[in-house]
């Protein structure tokens, strides 16, 4: 089985910051808006290098989304930055009407998604954002897994014309995807080849899935790990091709099972090839304060949980 190496832990939000800084140099139409979280979103470098293209809106997310929609009229490519909770739930109607329904080329960039925000607790740990965003017609939804991929995705979405929700996180996590990768929206990345179970993971759970695959290999189970960085549009072909071989699947995400990646995958399978599926996701609950590792353990979002789910789903074949 192909092995992956952590080249040094980094936060995905810094990947966003690095990508945005790069875009600042290469695309003069890129503008950035931030609602008083410049440091948290790692937008400092863009701000320092391009102050005329950086818009501090204060703690006013609704205005930020509306302004971003307006700035596209005139050819700008706005990247908005705040926490995932304030990027989605707080401004759902602004995104729905001024961005999605209006077809505006706005990139909604959201950090601190999910439980791994940690100690701040449930007020800030949104676990419903993927669902909220994927339900909007025309919205592309991306959840990247590490620093390198987040940087590549940030650069890639600027080239795509249309609204995008780009989700990433706060903690330092393994950085294992290639530095020079080309990010293709909607194209899944197969990380390992396997015959017994397909593990489809997104965001921080991709590394956990790889750890799980190693543990499963020691038990004589061969797992095919697929990194689904784009939840919408979903790479149906990659999923169907894999389950055609493995006959069972585990989906893994740092999100509520309602509305998340798992449900999107389940629909594809139900329509095309009904397949036993286990869901690694939160179970319709709010989070709480704790360290990221404690929370991922308590809510069952880590390699151990994926191993157990894989063993369960294999028995259901």
């Amino acid at each position: 089985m192909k092995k992956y190496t952590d080249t040094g832990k980094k936060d995905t939000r810094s990947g966003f910051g690095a990508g945005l800084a790069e875009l600042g140099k290469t695309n003069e139409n890129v503008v950035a808006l931030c609602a008083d979280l410049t440091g948290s979103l790692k937008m400092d470098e863009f701000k320092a290098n391009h102050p005329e293209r950086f818009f501090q809106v204060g703690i006013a997310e609704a205005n930020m989304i509306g302004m971003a929609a307006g700035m596209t009229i005139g050819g700008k490519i706005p990247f908005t930055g705040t926490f995932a909770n304030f990027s989605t739930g707080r401004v759902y109607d602004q995104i729905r009407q001024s961005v999605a329904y209006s077809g505006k080329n706005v990139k909604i960039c959201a950090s601190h998604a999910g439980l791994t925000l940690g100690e701040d607790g449930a007020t800030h740990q949104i676990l419903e954002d993927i669902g909220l965003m994927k339900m909007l017609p025309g919205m592309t939804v991306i959840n990247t897994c590490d620093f390198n991929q987040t940087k590549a995705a940030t650069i890639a979405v600027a080239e795509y014309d249309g609204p995008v929700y780009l989700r990433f996180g706060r903690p330092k996590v393994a950085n294992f995807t290639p530095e020079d990768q080309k990010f293709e929206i909607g194209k899944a990345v197969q990380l390992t080849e396997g015959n017994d179970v397909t593990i489809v993971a997104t965001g921080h759970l991709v590394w956990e899935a790889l750890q799980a695959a190693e543990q499963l290999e020691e038990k004589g189970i061969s797992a095919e790990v697929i990194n689904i960085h784009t939840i919408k549009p979903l790479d149906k072909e990659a999923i169907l091709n894999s389950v055609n071989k493995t006959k069972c699947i585990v989906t893994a995400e740092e999100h509520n099972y309602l509305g998340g990646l798992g449900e999107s995958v389940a629909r594809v399978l139900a329509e095309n090839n009904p397949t036993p599926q286990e869901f690694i996701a939160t179970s319709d609950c709010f989070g709480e304060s704790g360290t990221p590792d404690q929370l991922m353990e308590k809510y069952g979002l880590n390699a151990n949980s994926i191993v157990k789910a894989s063993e369960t789903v294999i028995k259901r074949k």
Partner: protein
Amino acid sequence: MPHNTQQLEDFVTQVRRDILRQVHKVNSGHPGGSLGCAEFFVALYQEIMEYSTDFDMDGKNEDLFFLSNGHISPVFYSVLARSGFFPVEELATFRHIDSRLQGHPTTHEGLPGIRVASGSLGQGMSVAIGAAEAKKLNKDNHLIYSLHGDGELQEGQNWEAIMYAAAHKVDNLIATVDLNGQQIDGSTEDVLPMGNIKDKFLAFGWEVLEIEKGNNIVEVIKGIKEAQQLTGKGKPVCILLHTVMGNGVDFMMHTHAWHGKAPNDEQLAIGLEQNPETLGDY
């Protein structure tokens, strides 16, 4: 193209007919606020703004208009059509299935002249500010105009935007508030008194100009031209446009009753009689 006062008034009269006929045909829509703003729209599109009817979304080197209170779509559609953005005959499809003239304006159906969807209230000020900032980045000296209902100011997002515009010196924006004192449930004073709106804008750091006779086309044009003189001086500009809801149709005036209600056949006939055909019905 400059017009004399009679030509402009004739234009307004025809727009009123279009409004009544659009909402009557589908027995739905918002005639009251539409009628009250007829002079404002005719002033903008016939006298004030520089624009191309060869519609381009980016609108570079053009003045742009954003309608925040999207429910007054009948007046917007009528003036856009009669200004050359799309065929006047298309007004007959207002609120019909498969129409580009949706109940509330949208870019989704590709109707020329519309740059953002509106209807869910309180969002247009932010969009207008964003477009104004884009114009500054593009070194485009044309202006952004926007229109907002007075009741709409109850939406908090407006005040985020109003605060931003002053703080960031968005001085290429003229935001007009339609002060008709009415909203769906009654007068704004009954529903949620907003105090002194002029003082609020002034306190937030805007220039404020009042047009007391918002249903007098000459006064409206004069007022907007005065507002233009206030742009480019470091402050966003607000026009408080005093209008009468339902203006031009006697039984619809001075009441919220016609905010979102269509006239029946008899009422339509009376309304049309009070506003004789001038430019030709569609």
